[in-house]
């Protein structure tokens, strides 16, 4: 089943829409789906033109396509556990919170907190991602625990903060404090980043660009040759963060 949600013109298009109900498992049962526009509860059809094509017997077979002014939609795919969401444009904050399975494809940019505390599944963002991409939330000591987040463009500050499992791949640059408090999982950065992996206790971080303002609390472990996606690279190996008795691995490509 394919559900196409095209946004309707709104009087004030800047008011964010809390769309945590937009997940494949909700569309299977065709029950009354409601979202909030600001503090007003709205029926789904008040916000979107809805087109449904084909049948589905399980949520795996449900695909949701979001089109139009999608940049104000928040929390799309929260607690998603199957199926597929395709966003034709940008997406708002908290996309894919706590998702455990299924996939989300974003053709445009994603705002902050993309895939926060994700448990499983796959998110691919073809544009840039905001701050706190694949991070944990305030106070929580375990962030993303499984699954994959792939960003083709750049991402903001605190990328993969409290990363605990799964894999995060940023093809472009990252902002400040990338992979801070990492305790597991894999973080791969194609471009540059700033102050990576502070207080890291576990996991692996690979950086193919420059690591600016590298923290002094990492112990150098020489140079190793690593294979990544069919190519071989000379990587400088660091262990740390020593300040926190950390056993993480930080690999930075030798120029």
């Amino acid at each position, binding site marked *: 089943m394919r559900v196409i949600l095209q946004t309707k013109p709104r009087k004030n298009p800047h008011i964010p829409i809390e769309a945590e109900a937009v997940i494949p498992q909700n569309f299977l049962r065709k029950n009354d789906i409601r979202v909030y526009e600001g503090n007003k509860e709205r029926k789904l059809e008040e916000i979107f033109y809805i087109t449904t094509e084909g049948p589905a017997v399980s949520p795996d077979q449900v695909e949701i396509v979001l089109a139009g002014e999608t940049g104000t939609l928040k929390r799309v795919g929260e607690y998603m556990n199957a199926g597929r969401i395709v966003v034709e444009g940008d997406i708002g904050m908290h996309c894919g919170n706590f998702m455990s399975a299924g996939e989300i494809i974003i053709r445009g940019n994603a705002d902050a907190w993309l895939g926060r505390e994700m448990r499983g599944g796959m998110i691919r963002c073809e544009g840039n991602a905001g701050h706190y991409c694949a991070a944990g*939330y305030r*106070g929580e*000591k375990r962030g993303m625990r499984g699954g994959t987040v792939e960003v083709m463009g750049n991402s903001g500050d605190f990328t993969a903060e409290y990363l605990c499992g799964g894999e995060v791949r940023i093809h472009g640059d990252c902002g400040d404090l990338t992979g801070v408090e990492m305790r597991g999982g894999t973080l791969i950065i194609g471009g540059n980043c700033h102050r990576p992996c502070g207080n890291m206790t576990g996991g692996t971080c690979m950086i193919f660009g420059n690591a600016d303002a590298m923290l002094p609390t990492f112990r150098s472990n020489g140079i190793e040759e690593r294979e990544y996606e069919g190519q071989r690279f000379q990587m400088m190996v660091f262990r740390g963060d020593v300040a926190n008795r950390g056993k993480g691995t930080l690999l930075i490509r030798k120029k």
Partner: protein
Amino acid sequence: MSELLVRNAYVIDPLSGIKGDIMDIAIRDGKIVEEVGRNAEVIDADHCLTLPGGIDSHSHVCGTKVNFGRYMSPEDMRAGRTARKGVMHVTSGYSVPTTFGNSYRYSTMGYTTVLEGAMAPLEARHTHEEFTATPHQDMLANTLFDGNWSIMEAVRDRDVNRAAAVVAWTLSAVKGFAIKLTNPGGTEAWGFGEDVHSIRDQVPHFGVTPGEMIETMIRANEILNLPHSVHLHCNCLGVPGNYQTTLDTIDLVPDLNAKRQSLYLTHLQFHSYGGSTWRDISSKSEDIARAVNNKSQLAIDMGQIMFGRTTTMTADGPMEFKLYMLHHNKWSNHDVELETGSGIIPVYYSRKSLVNCVMWAIGLELALLVKDPWQCMLSTDNPNGAPFVKYPEIIALLMSRRFREREMALLDPRTGHYAPLPAIDRELDWYEIAVMTRAAQAKALGISGIGKGHLAPGAEADVAIYPLKPGLLDPSTDYQQVMAGFGKTRYTIKRGRVVARDGDIIVEGANSTIWTKANVPPEYNLSADPEFVKKFEQYYTVRMSNYPVQDLYLPRGVRITTEAAL
């Protein structure tokens, strides 16, 4: 004049000697009366279990350290959210909820009176402000004296009367209810980076021992004729082998009061550990329970832990530091000048941890091995052992051996080797549960005289009607129903008004704060004592005239006045 009649109630009222009679309860203007007119509003209790409103005799729900627990745990605030609904405010939080969250959840469980376990005198204003925002429970505040410099000097000089005078002045200044000692001496030693390891250790720089402080305070308490006894959190909390310290403390206690205990030992589960390290920790609940059974001048509460996430908070600063060294997570440490300190860390009690399993067993063993339910009260030291919303589950565990066995099967298999719980057959009955959750508290806190914890004519009309029919229910097999029933009352009546019905809060509520004032002769009035005034001016950052809490902070204060025998 508002009148209310509760018909066909299955009443257990231990303080009045009612052990399960079908009767009517008449209420007029917030008090229980003999009978009401024909126009009274009627509630048909339909033979459901009806008890006096619950009383929690040791809980941390208001005050600076609870609030600090709130802001250091934003992740806890994400749990337990409820939206605004009718008169209900928005609530959030699980182990340290908002004040309204606490109040509504207690109300839903039929609790109408709660004692805040530890109020730092200097920070009393904040505690009282939060009391007014806990609208469905009458509140009392235990006031911390464990590191009070004036008290320690009086103890060093062996001057019981002076200690009594300090207590009398402080309680009336901060509108406190009773004396709380938390790791006496230890918290102040922690201010110098040290701790005490038994009740005979000298507190560094003060020349007193915890044992001397406890003895002096027990006597000072009786001189002032305070309604409650000294409320003690023993030294060495959470240290393997600490049961010896607890037994030594119990040995100190004289029998000085015919009406109630002379010493209240709180969260005794945390003080009943054998062994010498975390690897060989074992339960010494049998020794502790034997000592309590032999001394009728003692009252204790369980301090049960339940598995899951919670936040520990106590004035016992050094203990929290030890916990921090185990967990390496967030930690807060706080010093209150010349008075006390505190520490807070979040914890997770796990079924996979043998230590946690043994702790879980010890709490239940204490409740089951202490023969007289009037001596052992139900508590989790909320939120240290578990949030108070777990009380129904603890009641079900105490009432059903089968439930205990089922739970034991999920624990570390070695638990039975370190704790005697599997060998205990006792199952508590409805009457014993009623004692352990309200009547014993009213007696121990000395507030039955102002109409708390019973349903005799003249008492406050605090009533909890649970959807449980004791005649039709066997708690040892129907423990799930017991748990659900105690978790949500059909009606909670507070001062003659129905405040909660089937889990819904239906009135805004307005609580009162109970505090004590001991009248002392003029020569013991410290506000005119040159030495005390001088010390205040010299050391405190607050002027003495600004220190007392104004009446403004207690919109509905209830004062208990006593005459000191000085």
